[in-house]
């Protein structure tokens, strides 16, 4: 059996971070790090080299979009899958997220079932 997918969670709202962590575990994956801002997310991604990064778009300092761009620009992390979570749900917001290099975009508020499904899908996907 394959090792569980290693996931990094980044959201400045602790309650959301915990909720995302629960959903990730429900999807059968492991949370390798859970951080509260963009800079920590980038550092943790470089240290842990996770399979999947679940990123909130609006975080203090580096935004989720900037972190996503930086992950893609760094050869060591370019292979991570990225799921963006955001309160912005307009087609423009989604387009910006996908342009930044995200594999999927989930607007807030999301359902736990929807997030579990999305994480499972990305965990099974190869980049």
């Amino acid at each position, binding site marked *: 059996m394959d090792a569980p997918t290693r996931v990094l969670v980044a959201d400045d709202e602790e309650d959301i971070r915990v909720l995302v962590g629960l959903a990730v575990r429900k999807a059968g994956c492991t949370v390798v790090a859970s951080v509260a801002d963009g800079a920590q997310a980038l550092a943790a991604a470089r240290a842990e080299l996770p399979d999947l990064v679940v990123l909130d778009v609006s975080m203090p300092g580096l935004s989720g979009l900037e972190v996503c761009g930086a992950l893609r620009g760094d050869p060591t992390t370019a292979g991570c899958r990225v799921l963006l979570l955001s309160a912005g749900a307009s087609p423009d917001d989604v387009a910006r997220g996908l342009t930044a290099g995200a594999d999927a975009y989930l607007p807030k*508020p999301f359902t736990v079932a929807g997030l579990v499904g999305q994480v499972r899908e990305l965990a099974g996907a190869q980049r």
Partner: protein
Amino acid sequence: MPAALAGVALAGVAVLAARPGTPVLAVAAVVVLATVAELARRLHAQLTTVGDLVTQGRSTAEELEVATRMMRARAQTMTSVIDAVTEQSIIGTDRDGLVRVWNPGAERMLGLPRADVVRLRNIVEFHDPEELPPADGPAAARFATLVHDAEEHGSDVRDWTYLTADGRQLTVSVAITPRTDDDGEQAGWNFVGTDMTEVRATERLKDQFVSLISHELRTPLSSILGYLELVLDDDEQPLTDEQRQYLTTVERNAQRLLRLVGDLLFTAQVDAGKFTFQSADVDLAAVVRAAEETARVTAAARGVTVAVEVPDGGLVVRGDALRLGQACDNLVSNAVKFTPDGGSVALRLRPGRRDESGAVHEDDGPGTPVALLSVADTGIGIPAGEQGRLFTSFFRASTARRNAVPGVGLGLTITKAITTAHGGTLDVTSAEGRGTTFTLALPR
């Protein structure tokens, strides 16, 4: 006194002629005197003519003076009106943009006295160079850009950025119209400006505020709904029926709050002209059926029947499925909400056309093909006098308020905005106490 002179001369001739003994001198004198008399007579005649002419001339001059006085009074009225305008800038230019009129409103707005501007400065010098062709190019090109639309359409109103004498930038709504001379020839341009700097700043602030609030409300709602879902769906620790009922109520209200936040954000986006959507083929029949399904439980609980009539093969339009679904849901949920218990709602979708005048028909005549959706209810109706305001944000019909039907007055605003963005129309017919029919027409 020409008449008196001629009289004296003639009297002299008569006296001399009557005296004997001095024939040569007398004759000569008579001749001289007669000549003088004649001259005097002619002079008198001429002077009379001149006198008449002078009299005539005097009346013409009087007429001229009256006309001049009237003109001056009119000009004075115009000037006093223009000078009384202190909150709007009124700037008149010649055809090349050289300033000819500069009212106190312009003095106040731009901080320069009339004497420093009239016949000395071109209006383009008071415009933000960023909004006009490069300043190193010909001034004529910059002025031509400024008046281009007014030249094309007869007038033009839009926001421009004015630069004040002390270097401030003002957002000014400027109405540009051509100025004509006495012969009706174009003499130049009028620029009437209203300072909108504060208004526009307030509008921007409102947009930012709504976006911020929406974001700040959505984040805690994400937590509330997410954790509720975990509790409600936990198979290992099932809830009692009572616990489930309470938490379901919490969830329903959180969803309601979420919809309200979404509606507010959407209305703000529409107001700011930022509403965008992605177009695809959408089967309206499926959208209508889904809207009926959404309303079914609420309708059934109140004994309201919802009938659906859609073409078997569907009816496809170009648009955003999510937004069209929202528009349709709003109309159907409104129809159910405003219909008393035991009433009925009918959803009817069919092809139609829009004729040249913009009217929609159900037949196959000439015009643009449209999809027609009517949502008819047997509800409380909307008073005729209030129907024109139905699509205004936060407006609620008196019948809705009287009957305590819940709502905030955003649904129809949103439905109308979605319809308009799709190039469609939304019309209403209603009779108080008998019911309302909304008809949505979308190009297909």
